[in-house]
């Protein structure tokens, strides 16, 4: 399985449930397209739920970083939710864990946008 993305609204926050593999090719481009699409529609509060992401490579990390900078540059906020141990380890190794605002609880993450 590559990646599956589904978006839902919780108040004014767009929650993107991501499942599968975010790797070079279909996985990373799907995430990039989804984030660009949301930014293009003016959505400025984006919460990426990565709880069902089984695998992420350096290309996937690159898409998270690019998404973060794209949203931030448009005056928005991008936060991460439910990191698996592997994804958390990767973000820590690459020193990106402190760049992102990471949450384990969706309600708290949504409140953090206020």
């Amino acid at each position: 399985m590559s990646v599956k993305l589904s978006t839902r609204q919780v108040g004014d926050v767009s929650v993107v449930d991501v499942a599968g593999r975010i790797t070079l090719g279909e996985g990373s481009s799907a995430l990039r397209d989804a984030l660009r699409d949301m930014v293009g529609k003016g959505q400025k509060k984006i919460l990426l739920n990565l709880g069902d992401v089984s695998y992420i490579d350096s290309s996937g990390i690159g898409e998270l970083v690019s998404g973060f900078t794209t949203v931030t540059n448009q005056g928005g906020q991008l936060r991460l939710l439910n990191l698996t141990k592997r994804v958390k380890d990767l973000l820590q190794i690459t020193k990106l864990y402190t760049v992102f605002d990471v949450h384990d609880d969706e309600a708290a993450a949504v409140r953090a946008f206020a």
Partner: protein
Amino acid sequence: MGKNSRSATETVERFLDSTLESVDDAEELALLEAEKAGVPEDDLHKIAMAVRESMVNAVVHGNRYNAHKKVHLSVSKGPEEFVVRIADQGDGFDYEHLPDPLAQENLLRHSGRGIFLIKAFMDDFQVRRLDPGTEVTLVKYLVSK
């Protein structure tokens, strides 16, 4: 498939096309052989990811998806170590002068983390210039060194 029965080391080789499908195939093969070699669960994912990153470098940056160029994959299991070699036919790269992905000015760059992650996940990593191409060697020790 090539097998070397002269010693306790067993080697599997493939010549792969310069495609993203080959990246998946190489990762799958390395994972399968690592499992057979008894590599601990925690290290399986690290090997898989290091092979994926190395294959992406070979296919995308080395061979640049050139249909006329191949990637040579070699997976060896010995009594003490698990070794993966990946060689492309590209122009090579300056391994000694890669930007540090952990430097503050590079933290938010889109790319440049592949080799850093390979080195973080493997016990040893070596780069050798070929003529033409580049060969990387990934080693995971099966016994404590």
